[in-house]
């Protein structure tokens, strides 16, 4: 048994003043057809997220939080309603336009890390810059910087299977941030880590928030959500509650 983690130390927390509006969702619904059945994953969600926010999306499985997160990450478009990202209407964008938004504006961190297994940390972090079309020298420099920023300056030429879980997730965080996105979107970032490593990753997130990043974490764990400044709870495809957390 892994011993329960020590209660999160309640250091005084900074709450940075909200910046301009990044995410503006109005009355968004999402329907899935599963065989003959139609699943209402989202039933009319409205949400505004500003720059400098640190938000947790919570809810039991089946509540629609994955759907919401996919939509926020521009991996998916709503069935109805509007989604404006940095003022641009995402709901009507083509696949390639969405790809471009994902590439420049959104940094993903996944539960299963989702690194390319045969590539080095450096190459994994470089990847978004390759798709952004940066010349090799510039992107290598930025990838190095991003890796150093997550404390992996000495693991650049290691492949994912030569790294621990925590290190892999750090590589994923470096990859997510290398393009200086508007938001960092993390889906259960500690779900595949032991609680100590998970706590370390969350401390990294706190640090990134302090450095000026906008972070959205999808989780079902209260301990994780407690790191955020704001938490919304989803239930049956609707936002059940939306409140500030912590102190």
């Amino acid at each position, binding site marked *: 048994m892994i011993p329960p983690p020590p209660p999160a130390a309640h250091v005084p927390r900074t709450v940075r003043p909200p910046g301009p509006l990044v995410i503006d969702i109005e009355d968004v619904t999402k329907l899935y057809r599963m065989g003959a059945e139609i699943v209402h994953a989202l039933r009319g969600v409205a949400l505004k997220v500003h720059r400098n926010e640190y938000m947790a999306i919570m809810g039991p499985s089946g509540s629609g939080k994955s759907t919401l997160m*996919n939509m926020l990450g521009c991996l998916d478009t709503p069935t109805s309603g509007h989604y404006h990202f940095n003022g641009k209407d995402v709901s009507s964008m083509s696949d390639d336009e969405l790809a471009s938004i994902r590439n420049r504006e959104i940094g993903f961190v996944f539960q299963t890390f989702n*690194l390319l297994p045969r590539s080095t940390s450096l190459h994994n972090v470089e990847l978004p810059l390759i798709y952004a079309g940066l010349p090799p020298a510039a992107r290598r420099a930025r990838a190095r910087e991003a890796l150093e920023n997550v404390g992996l300056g000495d693991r650049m030429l290691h492949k994912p299977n030569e790294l621990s879980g925590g290190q892999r997730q750090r590589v994923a965080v470096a990859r997510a941030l290398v393009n200086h996105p508007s938001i960092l979107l993390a889906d259960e970032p500690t779900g595949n880590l032991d609680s100590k490593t998970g706590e370390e990753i969350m401390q990294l997130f706190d640090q990134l928030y302090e450095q000026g990043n906008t972070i959205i974490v999808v989780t079902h764990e209260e301990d994780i959500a407690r790191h955020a400044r704001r938490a919304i709870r989803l239930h049956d495809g609707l936002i059940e509650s939306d409140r500030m957390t912590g102190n």
Partner: protein
Amino acid sequence: MPLIEILRIALSSIGVNKLRSALTMLGITIGVFSVIGVMTTVTALRSSIETGLSFLGTNMFQFGKYPVMGGGSNRREIEMRRDITLEQATRFKQLMEGTADVVCLKVFDGGGQAVYNGRKTTPDVTLAGTNEYFINANQFSIELGRNLQPEDIELGRPVIVIGQDIIKKLFPSENPLGKTIKMKGRTYVVVGTFADKGSSFGQSQDNIAMIPITRFFGDFGAARRTVNIATEAPSHLLYNETMDKGLTAMRIVRGLKPEDDNDFEVYSNESLLGAFAKVADYITAGSFVISGIALLAAGVGIMNIMLVSVTERTKEIGIRKSIGARKHSILTQFLIEAVTISLAGGVLGIVLGVIVGDVVAMLMKASAVFPWDWAVLGLLVCSGIGIGFGFYPAWKAASLDPIEALRYE
């Protein structure tokens, strides 16, 4: 996204599945190899023939009963022709005096065995019954001793000129001149030897001996024998004129009426070249069909392996899409992968084809060539196959839903 990056990604993923990629490549290699191999040989032979290697001597033409290649539909008609007898041939030679002096009459028997002093050759010596112009007509030269002489033919002397293969067997350490040998059971005196000629079309040309044609008919009979007559025009300018006169003389000795068709064949370097070209065309067409089928099968193989690859790498595609890969980046990545496999197979096929084709051509005494046109065409076809058969898998990869792809395990 720059092409070079996509290329790098595609190459590295081929490297991961080396065996699989190599096997897929092999299909293309076989298809390209067969057509390039054949085309190399054909091109080499054709260019050697066009640049001087001639079937007959320069300015020569030849009459015979049988056509060079089979006879096709009128085979029966050709079989029914009268043989060209020694008398007819001798008469022809007389008629041609003053027009063309070099007229070679020749008949051949295979399967001869030469014996001297207990030593034997294998029973596969070609024995020619001919005259002093054999060396002109068939491009031999005399090394030791002398050629056949007109008196040898007139008198039917039992003399023989032997080739190098026979000398090696019968006279390993002796001078063959003046020795009496047995050939096909008859006795001859060696008066000369042929100089080494090497092999042509894979066959030794030194396993040969010649005796006077009159002696040949006397010793081995005239039944079912037809004489070939090779005539050399005095110069290239007089070639057509000589050929016309030769045809007239031949019609006279054959006793043909003006309305009769020629009952003999005329070979010239042109007609032999034409016959070669016809055979070459058939071989080319055949190799195209075989290559086409092989390449089609290889293309299906590429499509199959690419589909497997797309399925295996669904997660990777999802990751790439989630961090901003556009549809065409993914499409290009997989297309390049397919084209690279196909092209690599093609290059290997071209290299092997050229090597094997040239080895075959050199065995046939033609000089080696590199068929650029066919090589370039081969590469184009391979790229086409890569794109054609790689497109569907690549399109499938590019169209994957990123969420589904990410969820794939």
